């Protein structure tokens, strides 16, 4: 058997196995996902331009921080939701993420607490 025939056979065999194992999504579903990915990609690019544009407004630090983080959270949410397939993901994954966020927030509070303590801020004073 020639090498090209062997490759063709292997590819055909792999496609059969793929079909046997039952891909979760149909071809039409995947194409629909692809259209969503393209839309998300465009939105992310627009939001990147908005992020840079807002920085040229030279807002005071607090509103600048709020706007920048709002856009960043929205962009990160789009990537997580669509590119990382969190939309429609199983509850176990969300349980991991919720637990992680709780720990991150707790750690962040500890840092802020330490900072306030360093600056002489005490509760009740």
């Amino acid at each position, binding site marked *: 058997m020639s090498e090209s025939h062997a490759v063709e056979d292997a590819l055909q065999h792999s496609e059969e196995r793929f079909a046997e194992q039952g891909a979760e999504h149909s071809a039409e579903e995947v194409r629909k996902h*692809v259209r969503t990915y393209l839309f998300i990609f465009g939105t992310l690019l627009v939001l990147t331009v908005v992020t*840079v544009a807002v920085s040229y407004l030279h807002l005071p630090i607090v509103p*600048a921080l709020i706007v920048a983080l709002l856009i960043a959270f929205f962009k990160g949410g789009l990537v997580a939701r669509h590119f990382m397939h969190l939309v429609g993901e199983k509850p176990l994954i969300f349980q991991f993420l919720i637990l992680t966020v709780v720990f991150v927030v707790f750690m962040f509070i500890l840092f802020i607490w330490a900072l306030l303590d360093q600056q002489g801020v005490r509760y009740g004073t």
Partner: protein
Amino acid sequence: MEIPYTVQPRPDTGVTNSKVGIWLFLASEIMLFGGLFSAYVFLRLGAPEWPGSMAGHDYTSASEILSVPLAALNTVILIASSMTIVMAWASLMLKNFSRYKMYMGITIALSFGFLLVKGFEYASKFEHGLFPSESTFLGIYFVLTGIHAVHVIGGIVVNSYFLGPGSKMWKTNPQQFTNRIEIAGLYWHFVDIVWIFLFPTIYLL
């Protein structure tokens, strides 16, 4: 020994073991970068001026030291690479292996592009005597962007393996190979998300 539930979801969790593994790993990564971002906030709010004085100059904003256009370019590069790696996975779902190879190749090329731009940025800082030891701002800048760059290099190694020798699995077990690309993609999207937060935090505020 075969690792169980790499193709079919485990009945009790509803997901494959590889997906559970990558999400646990990403949870640890969230803690790592969460700690670094917390350190950034701690240092920034505690500093009398930011970025402050370095190499004999007084700076009032990060954009006076760092290149916003180059960082914005890197943001676009990483977002594009996120798009191409998800297209690589979608190509496998559509059983189009040659298109998978094209998209994965573009993803790796974009990753190298990101590192090239980052290299230009670092070289420009070093030329002007701006080293991590020069100030708190530069210290946290190099730590945050450096650790992120290490993650990009890690992604390049994994993605290159799946483009090269690792792609042989497509012929023997296409469903598992497709799952592997989805897992590699999850890591790569996380690297993208970290940069989405790093860019405004360090360069623009």
